[in-house]
Each structure stands twice: as structure tokens, then as C-alpha cells.
């Protein structure tokens, strides 16, 4: 049943349920946007909960935030933005009709940057948190120095690990997909007419990036350690 609509076929990648290539690309891109709307609600639930508690336990969240190492967070932000750039370059090179190898190069760079992000996240940040007893459920220790607000600090770390964990999970899902797309690119499957899968994985990657852009200030910067004002 692969080609019921052979008379419409314009491209190897054409699917039978569509009328033409334009409709197919439109549907794919639109579908990706709908999927991202779903993703926004997925993260939205936990962001909503974060806002509730942050308003309730302002001081505890400040203490928690100041315990994070903003160096790593900032470095990772740069890494992730760079990976978005390389992803955009991969799509651009397909649109411009460049060879598959060029696309592959950019895609592999994206994967590499994604791996660096995850490596920093897990081996430096999470590992440090573990040795400092900051992971709720894994021997979290409330320190006396935190004083009155200390009791709610685990709540901040619950959010920190849920949110960054969920974000990392999205990257871990994304990386193999990019690799599959890279194999397709290697086989010269994408050109200026057909690059929908590339574009879609790009949208996904950018979305994951944007989530981080929100997570970074909400988790690393709310402590206000790097602002001279507000000295509580």
C-alpha cells in the first residue's frame, strides 16, 4: 500500500496519505508545533508549582539557589545556545542545498555540545550535590547555617532535580534522534525540497534550549547572590 498515489509522487519521501509534498511538509511542521504546545503544558505544570512555592518560601528558595554553582549553569547555557546555533546551521545547509556531509558535521557538533552539557550537569553539578547531601531522598541534610528557612530548602532542591532532570531527559531523548537524522543526512536524504525531519528535530532542540533559558534564571539566579542589592 506504499504508493496508492503514485500519480502524485514527487519525491522518495512522499507519504501516500498526502496530496502533495507541500501538504506533507505543512502537516509535519504544524504537527511539531502542536507537539511543542503539549510540551509547554508539560513543563508548565511544574513551573506553576514552582511559582506557588517560590512565593510561599522566598527565603528558602534563595538559600537553595545560592547553593548552586552558577559557573556551571552559565557555562552550560553558553554550550546549549551554541548547540542551537549548530542545529540551525544544519537546517540551513540542507535548505541551501549543501551536501549531506555538511549537514552531518553540524548535527554531530550539536550532539557533541549536548553531550558536554549533560556531562557538566551530571558529573560536576549533580555529583557535587550528592557529596554535599543536597539531593532530596538521597541523604539530604538540612544545615544549621540556613537557620529558620532551612526546613523548606529541600523543596527547592526537589524542584531543581525534577526540572533539570526532566530537561536532561528531553536532551537524552533528543540526541539519538539527532543521530538517526544524521544517518539520513549522510545518505543524502535531505535537500532543498525535503528537509522536514531535520526541521522538526531542530524545532524540538530549540524548544529544549528555550526551556533551559527559563530554568537557568529560575534556579541559578533567583538567589540574587550576584546582585549587590537586596542584602538579606
Amino acid at each position, binding site marked *: 500500500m506504499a504508493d496508492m498515489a503514485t500519480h502524485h509522487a514527487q519525491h522518495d519521501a512522499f507519504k501516500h496519505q498526502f496530496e502533495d509534498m507541500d501538504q506533507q511538509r505543512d502537516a509535519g511542521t504544524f504537527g511539531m508545533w502542536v507537539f511543542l504546545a503539549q510540551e509547554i503544558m508539560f513543563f508548565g505544570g511544574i513551573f506553576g508549582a514552582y511559582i506557588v512555592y517560590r512565593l510561599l518560601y522566598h527565603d528558602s528558595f534563595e538559600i537553595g539557589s545560592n547553593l548552586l554553582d552558577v559557573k556551571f549553569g552559565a557555562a552550560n547555557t553558553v554550550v546549549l545556545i551554541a548547540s542551537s546555533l549548530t542545529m540551525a546551521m544544519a537546517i540551513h545547509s540542507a535548505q541551501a542545498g549543501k551536501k549531506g556531509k555538511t549537514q552531518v558535521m553540524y548535527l554531530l557538533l550539536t550532539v557533541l555540545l549536548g553531550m558536554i552539557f549533560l556531562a557538566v550537569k551530571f558529573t560536576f553539578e549533580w555529583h557535587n550535590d550528592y557529596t554535599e547531601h543536597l539531593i532530596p531522598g538521597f541523604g539530604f541534610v538540612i544545615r544549621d547555617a540556613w537557620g529558620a*528557612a*532551612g*526546613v*523548606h530548602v529541600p523543596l527547592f532542591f526537589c524542584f531543581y532535580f525534577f526540572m533539570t532532570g526532566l530537561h536532561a531527559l528531553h536532551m537524552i531523548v533528543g540526541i539519538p534522534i539527532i543521530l538517526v537524522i544524521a544517518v539520513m543526512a549522510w545518505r543524502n536524504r535531505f535537500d532543498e525540497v525535503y528537509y522536514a525531519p531535520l526541521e522538526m528535530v531542530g524545532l524540538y532542540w530549540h524548544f529544549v534550549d528555550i526551556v533551559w533559558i527559563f530554568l537557568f534564571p529560575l534556579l541559578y539566579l533567583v538567589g540574587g547572590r550576584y546582585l549587590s542589592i537586596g542584602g538579606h
Partner: protein
Amino acid sequence: MTGLVQFGLGFLAQMAAMLPLHPPTASTIAENVDLLYYFLTVLTLFFTALIFGTIFFFMVKFHRQSPDEIPADTQTHLFLELTWTIIPTLITFVIFVWASVLYVQNSRPPASSTEMFVVGKQWMWHIQHPEGIREINEMHVPVGQPIKLTMTSEDVIHDFYIPAFRVKKDVTPGRYSSLWFQATEVGTYHLFCAQYCGTDHSEMIGWVYVMSPTDYAAWLAGGSKSESMAQMGGRLFSQLGCQSCHTGESSGRGPSLAGIYGTSERMRDGSARTVDDVLIRQAIVNPNSIALPNYPPIMPTFQGQVNEEQVLQLIAYVKSLGPEERTMSSK
């Protein structure tokens, strides 16, 4: 024939007795709630009958006459559409206002209320009277007296429900909820837990005994009453060694508690909080979450050492420390 009718009526009456349509009406708000309920019931029956009736009428009247029958088009009728949009909107608005006014009126306990305390615990209700009597799954109250319940839970969410009074409120761990009623009829009424709380949820039930004021006074006097809640709290206060810091002197390591209830305290971050049940409970189970300007955060938590009932006794004790003993504290 008449015998048959009489039998029929008698049977119906018996059925009606067996199948009451509403629970006893035994509180000041019950009749008002019932009135709204009956209005809504009549409305529901009216519209259900209207829709079913119209459908049946159309089914008979416009029954297909021949297999090829094709009826003529009817055009959409804007006037009709607006009618059946606006009329239901108006009806629901009337209900909303009616129900909300009733709800808002019933949401605040009268100032003359007597306070009683409820702690829900899998799977029983602990009730404490200010006079010190404690009951399990039973609550004795005087008729005609507004009663305000302050409630909390030791474990999961429960729900305190007295159908005869048409009142219900969730009882949540970690917070105080309140509910009030004024019984109007002497009698014995069901008390239910209406929020699923585990295995014996359906056994978490009891009775509310509404008594005449004299009977109630006699019951209070006859109970194995040793001390009032405040006295029990006072005893607990010294048992736990609270007075070693809360000495009542401004030089103590903790603020003096005399006359503190109901006042406004300034916190270290500059905000002001009223000293109420919630704040005192918080100070006992989670003292470090309250930062006072002139006192170091050295108070240990008493979570686990006192249960919710004892917390309520301690609150009653603090409340009983009248303003006449008030010293200048925590300024």
C-alpha cells in the same frame, strides 16, 4: 375500592417513611439549603420533562411516513437561539447569586460561637471541649448555641460531615480548617468522614448528640472532667520545659507568651503576623520557620513529641494567658 385506595395511600406513606428524601433538618442553615435544593430539583425535573416530552412529541408527530421521505429544510432561527442562550444564562445567574449569598452568609461563624476542637486520625475523630472533656467519634453539643470547630488531621485528608446540619469541611494535615453550625433540634445525628482516607474510611463515623442546654450542662458536669483544655496545655507546657525559655520575662531566651494571643508580632524580615492558632502551631512544630528580631533561632521542634490534640491544648493555654499578665515582649 376505597379500601384499595386507602391501602395504596398507606403503602405510599409507608414507602415515604422508608425512603425519606432529605436528612433531618437540625441546624439554622439546613432549611435554607433545602429550599435551594428543592428549587434546583424542581428546575431539573421541569427541564428534563420538557426535553423528554418534546422529544416524545416530535417522535410521534414527525414519525417517518415512507422510506423516501425527505423533509423540507428549516432555517436556523436566531431569535430561538438567543432565547435558549439567554434564558438559561439568567436562570443560572439567579441560582449563582442565591447559592453564593447563602454560602457567604454561612461562611463566618458568629462572634458568640463556642469553640471546639477536632482532630482526624485514621480512622477516628477526636473531639475536645474547651472544658477539657475529650470524646472519640462522639460529639455532644448544646442546642441553640453556635459552635465553631477548629480542625486538623494527624495523617491524611479527612472530611468532617454532618448531613443533618448540611455542613462539611476537609480536615487537612498541617493546617487548621474551621466549620461552624448552630443546632436547632435536640437529637442524635450522623457524623461522617466524607473524604476517602484509607482502609476503614467507612468506619470513621460517629454521632453528634444535640442536647438541651441544661442536659448539656449536666453532661459536662458529669463527665470525667479533670482539667480544662487550657489547664492540660499548662501542664504540658511545664512537662515539656517550655517555661525554661518562655519565662515570662523579657530577658528570657524566648518571648513571653502572656497576652500574646491575638496581637500582631513583627518578624525579622519586617512583616507582621497575627499570633493565632496557625502561628502558634507553626511555632511548636516548626519553630525555625518563624524568625523574631530579638531572639536567636534556638527553639527545637516539638514535632513528634506532641500530637495535634496536645498542640491544640498548648494553644488553648497560650490563649488563656490573659492580657493582664502581659509584659513588654519582643519589641
